[in-house]
């Protein structure tokens, strides 16, 4: 019977072309949405590589056109750290986790080049404040003051891309520049390696990251200082007020803003979810349209094939087998559409499109295949039942 159905569909390929096209496009849309959703979900379930809970971002601004001397800033940090409830204070750059601010670059070691890597400034207390998970070596320490090169800590994925299986600690690398000429301050020495981190959003993939050590005796004047404050559990608005007052006690010209990192994470999550949800809604509408189209075409097909149904009943088909035939035909048509869509979708894992691993694509292909078969089966179910219920004598007489 299956061969018969294939023959029938193949011989009716022109009239089935529209159906096959609809199924092909449905498959492609479902595959696209599926790949995004699976990748997003996979990222969501992966660890962040740091602990954002009980971390506040304290932003201190010197004011328009003003700078803050490092000595005064260090004084502020010392006083904030001394407050009850504050566990750690760490100075960093403006690209703290979950905010729309980034700083990235490419790095090179011998003939190897890193992917685009997030670059953070971090002082000796940063790892404690963020609870980064150290894999190799150590975080920055006063012992690094005398280093001839800029001490850095890198993430595991950057380590893999630059050094592969070779030891990374103590290695010196630079920015990736075509002329190979580097300034001494742009030569980095690896002090440690931490686990991969996801600092963009809950749904982002790990991104290669590098932390450059902020030198304590650096005399650079700052316009804005970003400080990560790890606080004791249960700390709230009262402590935030105390921090603001502490800063103000050093100099009234500076302004402060305290943000909870977890709030920033949730805020960023909303922004990331909007396009994903939008895409899913568009996909859903497309699929509903396709489903209604399929339903209509099948309904029409059955009304056009009443005589054939009557004939098959006369030849020995039961009502149930007529229903199964129509369902089977739809499954065969679906198979043609899915095969075409699968051929296109298979290029994504084969070519590692968008630098993604093959697994989410393969899962998306499987999910789209299952969903398309389910949708077409649901759409074909009622018309098939209708076909099964057609009275053979009536159908034959109509002709």
């Amino acid at each position, binding site marked *: 019977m299956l061969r018969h159905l294939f023959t029938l569909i193949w011989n009716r390929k022109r009239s089935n072309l529209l159906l096959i096209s609809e199924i092909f496009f449905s498959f492609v849309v479902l595959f696209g949405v599926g790949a995004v959703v699976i990748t997003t979900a996979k990222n969501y379930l992966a660890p962040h590589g740091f602990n954002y809970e009980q971390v506040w971002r304290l932003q201190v601004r010197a004011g328009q056109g003003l700078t803050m001397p490092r000595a005064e800033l260090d004084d502020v940090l010392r006083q904030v750290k001394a407050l009850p409830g504050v566990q750690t204070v760490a100075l960093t750059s403006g690209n703290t986790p979950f905010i729309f601010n980034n700083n990235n670059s490419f790095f090179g070691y011998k003939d190897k080049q890193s992917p685009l890597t997030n670059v953070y400034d971090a002082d000796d207390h940063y790892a404690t404040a963020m609870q980064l998970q150290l894999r190799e070596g150590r975080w920055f320490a006063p012992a690094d003051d005398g280093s001839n090169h800029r001490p850095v800590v890198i993430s595991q994925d950057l380590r893999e891309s630059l050094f592969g299986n070779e030891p990374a600690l103590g290695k010196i690398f630079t920015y990736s520049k075509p002329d190979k000429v580097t300034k001494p301050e742009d030569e980095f020495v690896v002090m440690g390696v931490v686990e991969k981190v996801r600092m963009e959003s809950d749904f982002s993939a790990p991104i290669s990251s590098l932390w450059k050590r902020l030198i304590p005796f650096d005399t650079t004047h700052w316009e804005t200082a970003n400080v990560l404050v790890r606080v004791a559990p249960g700390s709230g608005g009262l402590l935030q007020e105390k921090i603001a007052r502490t800063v103000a006690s050093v100099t009234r010209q500076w302004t402060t803003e305290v943000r909870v990192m977890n709030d920033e994470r949730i805020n960023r999550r909303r922004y990331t979810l909007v396009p994903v949800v939008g895409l899913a809604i568009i996909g859903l509408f497309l699929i509903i349209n396709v489903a209604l189209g399929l339903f209509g075409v099948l309904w029409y097909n059955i009304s056009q094939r009443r005589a054939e149904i009557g004939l098959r009943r006369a030849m020995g088909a039961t009502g149930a087998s007529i229903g199964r035939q129509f369902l089977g035909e739809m499954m065969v048509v679906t198979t043609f559409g899915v095969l075409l869509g699968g051929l296109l979708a298979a290029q994504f894992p084969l070519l590692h499109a968008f630098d993604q691993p093959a697994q989410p694509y393969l899962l998306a292909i499987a999910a789209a295949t299952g969903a398309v078969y389910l949708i077409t089966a649901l759409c074909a179910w009622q018309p098939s039942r209708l076909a099964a219920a057609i*009275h053979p004598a009536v159908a034959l*007489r109509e002709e």
Partner: protein
Amino acid sequence: MENLLASTIDTNSQPPLNGATAATAPVLQLTNIEKVYQTATIETVALNRVNLTINRGEFVSIMGPSGCGKSTLLSLMGLLDEPTSGTIEVDGRPVQSYSDKELAGLRNLKIGFVFQSYHLINDLSVLDNVELPLLYRPKLSGRERRQRAVAALDKVGLSARTGHFPSQLSGGQRQRVAIARALVGGPEIILADEPTGNLDSVMGEEIMDLLLGLNKTEGVTIVMVTHDIQQAMKTGRVVRFFDGSQVG
């Protein structure tokens, strides 16, 4: 070829249950058949107390004006419809209590249909069309189905047209294909509803000769609805209907 067809019939038929000899046993018996079509406002009596026996090997013509119930009778004989009252027996076995599945099996094994408008599936080749009834016999292999279909086409003189599609054939050839399809399952009875109605007189004669030949040489029981008295007179028995009642 005849042997192949004969073996098909032997394989698929069941022995009569009433103990009568195969040659004289009624293959189909209709007793007090009534068929009433009822809507909310109108009740139409299509058949009124019809008693008819079709014996094995007979060629029976059913005649009557349009709307007298001929096609309804053929639908009932073909187990495509149920009577409002009365009993239908196939090989001496009443079928009113049969399930849809059992009736479908009986149609497939014992009855072949030939229609005025051929009812061929245009998107299937001649061979695939003829194979159609055998698709509902899951025990048959694809090869066996093909062999039987070719043999049936050979019998109607169309074995050279297996790959053609219905649209590439003349009306007479299409009806021959329909007859081959009716024969392929080795049925005990062929029900033909105005098989020459859409054909010119020459082609009509060809089809009539073919049916007569099948009846005589193969012993296939045939019940044919026709408006053509000349064709009816060539058959063994003529049954006349008027306004749903048997009048002769």
